[in-house]
């Protein structure tokens, strides 16, 4: 093994044995776990039960049908979002659920509901399985022992204990949210458990109102068919949603992986750069560099350290990406819902090598900065004087650029920063998902390679010249002289 690789191996093994490294490895798994755990709280509430005692026998089925229609409309909306994410046709031939009226929903149900729609949409094998959310309300029979024919007060007293507890349903025990008593004549009466079922009460009220209006219209001499048309009429409202396979939401899906890589690059470079900085300062402050330099050229030491640090960075990123892929393909949840289509969007053959190129170059640019700071500093206190301005001059513009890309990928700041080599990797990674030209990739890539070469040459001189210095770190003038001195 040559000396460069020996140095790289030693630095790699030393860094990965530190607690800081192990904690860093856990960042992404923890984040993914938190997102999965956190979003589980955002899931729709579990199904609750309701009962209807309908003395006339006409209202219960109407309410039940309305509950079912509203639930299926929500399923259609979710299915439309799923279809857009995976570039599939919408569930009901052009109707995406937002503007689906009752007739469309009826047709959706008649054509097999979710299963029928998924059969027609044919999602690819790589897509996450679509799981419709459970219905919010489930009608169950009036419990035995609760008299439905002995008047409203008797019914109310008998049902009260059930409202305070769960009730047996085909899906197991569920809270009884609402009990409805519909007398043959007179006003409808509702009891609730005070916790769930507000939307059901609104729905029942609207449905009841609709039936009353219908009856009134008929009694007023309006023919029943006309009365039904009048009652079903809704003011036309045009809802515009992003077209399937495009629009802002689709753009964001395509940008998730490149944007995540920007964060990964920044975090990995700053964290591992900090570790290497400490390592170089330790070597300087422990006075062990002289013994090393008796065996290893300063250039070999520098390259070995960069390779060692690069290997640490790659290990971290590989572990993070591995966790993300595991979350995307093994665990269903919010992470999988967004990561899988985003990964599927990396379908252009040039995308992955270009992403890797910008990531690698960006990492190297920052690693060399940190290595130089380490070679100039006798202590972490010395290093802070350089570290703060360098880190801030990277983080602040990059975060401004990132928010610019998220608002509008074509805005001026990200485009300009793409041509400033220090920021090129970040800006280009962030913009790759939203479309960049081949000229931009080639031009910025070439400029970045030239910048990196000059950086390695000039900062390499500073590194070599500063390794055995024990005095105060150089001021700007002396620093520039070190950079320009050939020997």
């Amino acid at each position, binding site marked *: 093994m040559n000396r460069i690789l*020996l140095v790289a191996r030693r630095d790699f093994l*030393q860094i990965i044995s530190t607690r800081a490294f192990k904690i860093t490895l856990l960042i992404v798994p923890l984040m993914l776990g938190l997102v999965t755990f956190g979003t589980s709280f955002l899931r729709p509430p579990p199904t609750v039960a309701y009962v209807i005692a309908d003395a006339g026998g006409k209202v219960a089925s109407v309410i039940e049908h309305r509950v079912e229609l509203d639930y299926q409309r929500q399923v259609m909306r979710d299915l439309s979002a799923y279809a857009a994410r995976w570039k599939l046709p919408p569930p009901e031939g052009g109707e995406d659920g937002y503007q689906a009226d009752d007739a469309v929903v009826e047709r959706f149900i008649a054509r097999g509901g979710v299963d029928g729609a998924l059969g027609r949409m044919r999602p690819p094998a790589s897509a996450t399985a679509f799981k419709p959310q459970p219905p919010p309300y489930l009608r169950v029979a009036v419990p035995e022992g609760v008299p439905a024919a002995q008047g409203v007060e008797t019914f109310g007293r008998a049902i009260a204990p059930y409202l305070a507890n769960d009730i047996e349903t085909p899906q197991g025990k569920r809270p009884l949210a609402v009990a409805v008593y519909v007398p043959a004549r007179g006003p409808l009466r509702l009891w609730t458990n005070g916790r769930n079922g507000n939307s059901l009460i609104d729905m029942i009220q609207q449905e009841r109102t609709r039936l009353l209006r219908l009856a009134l219209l008929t009694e007023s001499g309006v023919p029943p068919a006309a009365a039904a048309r009048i009652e079903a009429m809704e003011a036309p409202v045009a809802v515009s949603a992003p077209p399937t396979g495009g629009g802002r939401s689709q753009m964001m899906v395509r940008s998730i992986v490149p944007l995540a890589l920007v964060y990964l690059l920044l975090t990995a470079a700053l964290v591992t750069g900090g570790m290497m900085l400490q390592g170089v300062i330790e070597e300087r402050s*422990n006075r062990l560099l002289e*013994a090393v330099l*008796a065996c290893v050229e300063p250039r070999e030491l520098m390259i070995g350290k960069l390779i060692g640090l690069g290997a640490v960075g790659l290990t971290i990123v590989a572990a993070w990406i591995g966790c993300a892929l595991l979350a995307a393909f093994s665990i269903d949840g919010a992470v999988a819902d967004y990561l899988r289509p985003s990964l599927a969007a990396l379908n252009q053959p040039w995308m992955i090598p270009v992403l890797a190129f910008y990531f690698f170059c960006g990492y190297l640019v920052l690693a060399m900065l940190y290595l130089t700071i380490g070679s100039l500093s006798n202590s972490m206190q010395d290093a802070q004087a350089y570290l703060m301005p360098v880190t801030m001059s990277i983080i602040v513009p990059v975060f401004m650029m990132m928010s610019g890309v998220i608002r509008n990928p074509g805005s001026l700041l990200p485009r300009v920063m793409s041509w400033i080599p220090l920021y090129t990797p970040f800006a280009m990674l962030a913009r790759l998902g939203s479309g960049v030209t081949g000229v931009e990739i080639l031009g910025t890539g070439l400029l970045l390679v030239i910048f990196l070469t000059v950086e390695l040459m000039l900062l390499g001189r500073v590194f070599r010249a500063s390794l055995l210095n024990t005095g105060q770190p150089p001021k700007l003038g002396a620093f520039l002289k070190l950079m320009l001195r050939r020997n």
Partner: protein
Amino acid sequence: MTALVLDRVVKRFGDFTAVDDLSFSVPEGGVFGFLGGNGAGKTTSVRMMLDILRPDSGRLEILGRPPARANAPQVGFLPEERGLYRLMTVLDTIIYFGRLKGMSAAAAGRSATALIERLGLGAWAKTTLDKLSKGMSQKVQLATALVNAPRLLILDEPFSGLDPVNQGVLEELVREAAAGGATVIFSTHVMQHAERLSDRLLLLAHGRKVFEGTQAEARAQLPPRLQLTAQADPSRLPGVARAVASGAARDGWQEWDVTLAPRHEAADLLQHCTANGFALRSFDLYRPSLHDVFLHLVGGA
């Protein structure tokens, strides 16, 4: 064959000349003392021998070749400023330096294990260095210099920071290395170590050579100091260059510090006194130490 040659070597740092026209050579085998006070240019010279620094002018040769990392497999180096990777174990540290010097992993492992036992560090082989005492850490550092069984061992101020027991251990190791055929060059400003170890030595002051030769030649730089107690003034005796009374006379006897003239021996003077009835109560001859020579040559430089 010469182990080391410096030929008119000059090294400057800005306006300061650290090493000034330095020339000397060290033959292979034996122990060579590289002596000088603080700032004399010892460490700069050592760094040039190892190619850590390059001379502004002049020429160096290490084992017949110009200084380069390619010489590392045959060179052992113990720097003045010592430190090790705190989180590496004793064994791994020694193997690492062995491998940096071109040894195979197996050979470095065997040599490291033997050195660890020799230095009494067997119980700490798998211990990280941050848990060792300073003395033990310095033994480990010495092992990193010896792991490749070097032909040339360069020790820069090797005894600094060591307690007397460990100084003794180190001296023993230096003698062993020399007995094994290695050339040992060690820099120091502690003359007792040089006196005990070095066959030849070089004195450096302000970057310039002020003496090079054997210990006897070094001592010959100063006349021996003679102290005698007599009733009469010894300054007229043959071979006496100067006699100065020291202290007050007691019962007619006076102590004298006597300086002999060049090429005159104290034994001849004693014989003359005995033969001619020159009354003496004491006759003490003090040979100059390296410390005296150092002060004489370097103190005034």
